[in-house]
C-alpha cells in the first residue's frame, strides 16, 4: 500500500473495514482474476468501452515538430475519456463484491459521467457528488449523468469544487459503507485505490507499448500525459516505467502562475508535483498544494479536470525517484494547444489533454525522435469554457470568437 513514503490509508476508522474489504477484493479479483473478473472487465472494456483505442500518427504535428508524434486516442473511449477504464473496473468490482450502490465524486464531470454510464450499464444505482461551482462550469456533463439515471448531489461547502466533492463522498461512504462502493476517480485516496485505479488505467500503456512495437518497431523516446489527480498519467506510464529509455513527462496545470498567495490560501495553479510539498490529503500521503501550516490551498486551472490540490502518491514517488519528469504549462499555452490540435489534426481535445500538447509545443526539441502523447479525453465538454476563456485572452491561433457570443 505504499510507494516509498507515499500512499497509505489515512481515513476515518469507520471506513477502514470497507477499505480492507476492498483491498481483499482488489487482490482476489483484480490481481488474481478470481471468478474471471479481469476477463469480464477486458471484454466489457472492449465491447462497451470501445477498446483498443488507436495509436495514431499525427501527420501534421509530426511535420511541424520534425519528429514522429503519435497520439494515444483515449478520447475515443465510450464517454469521451480514459475515465471509463477505471469507472467500469470499479463498478464491476462493486458488483463482484455484492455492493448495492455506487457513489462517486466528480470535478470536471468526466469521472461522474463515466461512472454514471458504467452504473447504468451494470444496473446498479449511482449517486454523484459534484461541487456547485463545477456543476455550473460543466452543465452538459451534469445532464449526461442525470440522463444516465444517476443522482447528482451538489456540494455547496467551501469553494464547491473537486476537493469538497471528494470530502463529501467520503462522508457518504462513511455512513453507507456496508452496502456502498465509492468509485474514486483517480489514482488518489487510500490504498488500494491508487494501485487499483492505476491497474485499471494501465490498459492505456499496455496497448500503446504493443502498438508502438507494431507501428514503428520500437518504443517511444518520450511519453507525455497531463496530470491532475494522475489517472491518465499513471495509465499512460505504467507499462513504460521499466523501460529506462522511455522518458515520462507528467504535464501539470501551471494555471496563471506558479506563485502562491499564502495569505489567501490560493495557488493559481494545480502543479502539485512541480511545486507541492509532502503531506496528507484524502487518505494518502502525497505531494500537495498547502500553506505552511498544512492547510490545503485552493488550486486553479483553466481546466476543471486538472484543478486539484493533490496528486496520486505513486506519481509523487516516481517523481522523487526521477523516473517521471514533472513539468507544467500555463493556461494560455493550454488554450493555444487546444486550438492547434483542433485545427491541425481534427481532434478537439479536452482542456486537460491540451496541457500535454502545449508542453510538446514548447519542448519538442528535447523529446527525442518518437513521442507518444496521451489524448486523455475529448473536448466537447469544454466548449463553453474554451469560448469564455479564449475570449478574455489573446490566443494567437484562436478562431474568430464573435460568432460564439451568447454561448451555447
Amino acid at each position, binding site marked *: 500500500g505504499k510507494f516509498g513514503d507515499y500512499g497509505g490509508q489515512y481515513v476515518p476508522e469507520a471506513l477502514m*473495514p470497507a477499505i480492507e474489504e476492498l483491498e481483499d477484493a482488489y487482490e482476489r479479483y483484480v490481481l488474481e482474476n478470481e471468478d474471471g473478473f479481469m476477463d469480464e472487465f477486458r471484454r466489457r472494456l472492449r465491447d462497451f468501452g470501445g477498446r483498443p483505442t488507436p495509436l495514431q500518427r499525427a501527420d501534421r504535428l509530426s511535420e511541424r515538430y520534425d519528429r514522429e508524434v503519435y497520439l494515444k486516442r483515449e478520447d475515443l473511449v465510450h464517454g469521451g475519456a480514459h475515465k471509463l477504464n477505471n469507472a467500469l473496473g470499479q463498478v464491476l468490482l462493486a458488483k463482484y463484491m455484492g455492493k448495492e450502490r455506487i457513489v462517486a465524486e466528480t470535478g470536471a464531470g468526466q469521472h461522474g459521467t463515466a461512472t454514471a454510464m458504467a452504473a447504468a450499464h451494470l444496473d446498479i444505482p449511482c449517486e454523484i457528488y459534484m461541487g456547485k461551482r463545477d456543476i455550473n462550469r460543466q452543465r452538459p456533463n451534469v445532464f449526461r449523468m442525470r440522463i444516465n439515471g444517476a443522482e447528482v448531489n451538489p456540494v455547496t461547502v*467551501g469553494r464547491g469544487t473537486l476537493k469538497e466533492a471528494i470530502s463529501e463522498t467520503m462522508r457518504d461512504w*462513511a455512513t453507507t459503507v456496508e452496502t456502498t462502493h465509492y468509485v474514486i476517480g483517480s489514482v488518489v485516496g487510500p490504498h488500494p485505490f491508487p494501485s487499483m485505479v492505476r491497474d485499471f488505467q494501465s490498459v492505456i500503456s499496455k496497448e500503446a507499448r504493443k502498438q508502438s512495437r507494431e507501428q514503428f518497431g520500437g518504443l517511444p523516446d518520450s511519453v507525455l500525459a497531463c496530470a491532475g489527480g494522475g489517472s491518465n498519467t499513471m495509465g499512460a506510464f505504467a507499462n513504460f516505467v521499466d523501460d529506462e529509455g522511455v522518458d515520462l513527462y507528467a504535464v501539470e496545470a501551471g494555471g496563471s502562475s506558479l506563485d502562491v498567495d499564502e495569505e489567501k490560501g490560493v495557488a493559481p495553479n494545480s502543479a502539485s508535483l512541480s511545486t507541492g510539498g509532502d503531506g496528507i490529503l484524502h487518505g494518502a500521503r502525497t505531494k500537495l498544494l498547502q500553506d505552511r501550516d498544512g492547510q490545503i490551498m485552493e488550486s486553479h486551472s483553466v481546466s476543471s479536470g486538472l484543478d486539484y490540490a493533490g496528486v496520486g502518491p505513486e506519481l509523487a514517488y516516481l517523481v522523487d525517484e526521477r523516473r517521471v519528469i514533472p513539468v507544467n504549462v500555463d493556461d494560455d499555452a493550454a488554450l493555444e494547444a487546444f486550438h492547434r490540435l483542433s485545427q491541425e489534426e481534427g481532434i478537439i481535445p479536452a482542456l486537460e489533454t491540451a496541457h500535454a500538447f502545449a508542453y510538446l509545443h514548447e519542448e519538442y526539441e528535447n523529446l527525442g525522435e518518437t513521442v507518444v502523447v496521451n489524448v486523455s479525453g475529448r473536448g466537447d465538454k469544454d466548449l463553453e469554457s474554451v469560448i469564455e476563456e479564449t475570449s478574455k485572452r489573446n490566443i494567437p491561433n484562436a478562431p474568430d470568437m464573435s460568432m460564439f457570443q451568447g454561448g451555447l
Partner: protein
Amino acid sequence: MSRVPEAFEDGPAFIPYLAVGDPDYESSLEYVEALERGGADLIELGLPFSEPIAEGPTIQSAVVRSLEGGMTPTRFFEFVEELDVDVPLVCMTYYNLIYQYGDEPGPRPFVEKAAEVGIDGFVVPDLPAEEAGPLREACDEFDRDLVFIVAPTTRGERLERIMDQVSGYVYVQARLGVTGAQEDVSDQTGQSLDRLAQWDVPKAVGFGIKTGEHAANIVAGGADGIIVGSALVDIVAEGHENGDSAAEVADRLETKARELKDGALRGVEQRVPHPERQ
C-alpha cells in the same frame, strides 16, 4: 504527564467538543470556559483543517467559520495557553496539520509544542492505527495520550491493533456516519461496548448525543464517558447567526453542558449488571 485519566476518576466523564476559533478567537475562549463551568471533565478542542472529511455539516460549518477567522495551529496553541480551565484537554485535528508543524517533518514538533501549552492528548480522525506509529512515538516521548476512534464496523484484528496503541480513552463511535446530531442512539453502541469490554481503557461514546436523556442512556449502557460535539456547535452557530452576544451563547453552552453532565450522572444510577460484560 497527561491528565486525561483524571477525567474518568469520578464517575462518567462528560467530554464536550468545540472547534477552536468558532466563530472567533475571543468568543471561543469564553465558550470553552463555559463548558468547564457546566461540568466538563475533559474538553476536546478542535483545530480546524481545511478538508474535514470525517465531519458532518454542523462541524464543517464551524471549521469554515474558524478558518475564515484566521485560526492556525500557532493561534491554536496561543489559545490553549490563554485558556483558563483546569480540566484535561485533548486536541482533535487532522493528521496533515500535525505532520506539517514545525521545522522537522513528522509529528514530533507538534506534540512537543502541544505538551508545552498543556494539551494532554490527541484524537486524529484520519489517522488509523496502521499509520499512527510516528505519532504514537511522539506521544510516548512527551507523555501524552493518543485516543483512537472505534467504529461499529471495527472488529477482530483491527480492533486489537487499535487497542494496542490507544491510551487515555477510546472514542466509541455510536453509529456509522459522520459527526452530527441525530435522534436515535444506536444499538450498535451496546455491541461496540461489548466488544471492548476486555480492555481496561475508559470507553467514551460519541456521535449523535444531543440531550441529557441520550447521555443517561449511553452511560446506563456501560459507557465511561460521553462525547458531545454537534449539539454544542449548533448553539454556537445559532448564536452567531442571530448576532447574540458571546456571554449569552456561553450561558446557553453552560446550561446545555450541565444537562448533559447531569444526564451522564443519572445514567450511572440506571446501570444494570450486564451478564456478558463482567
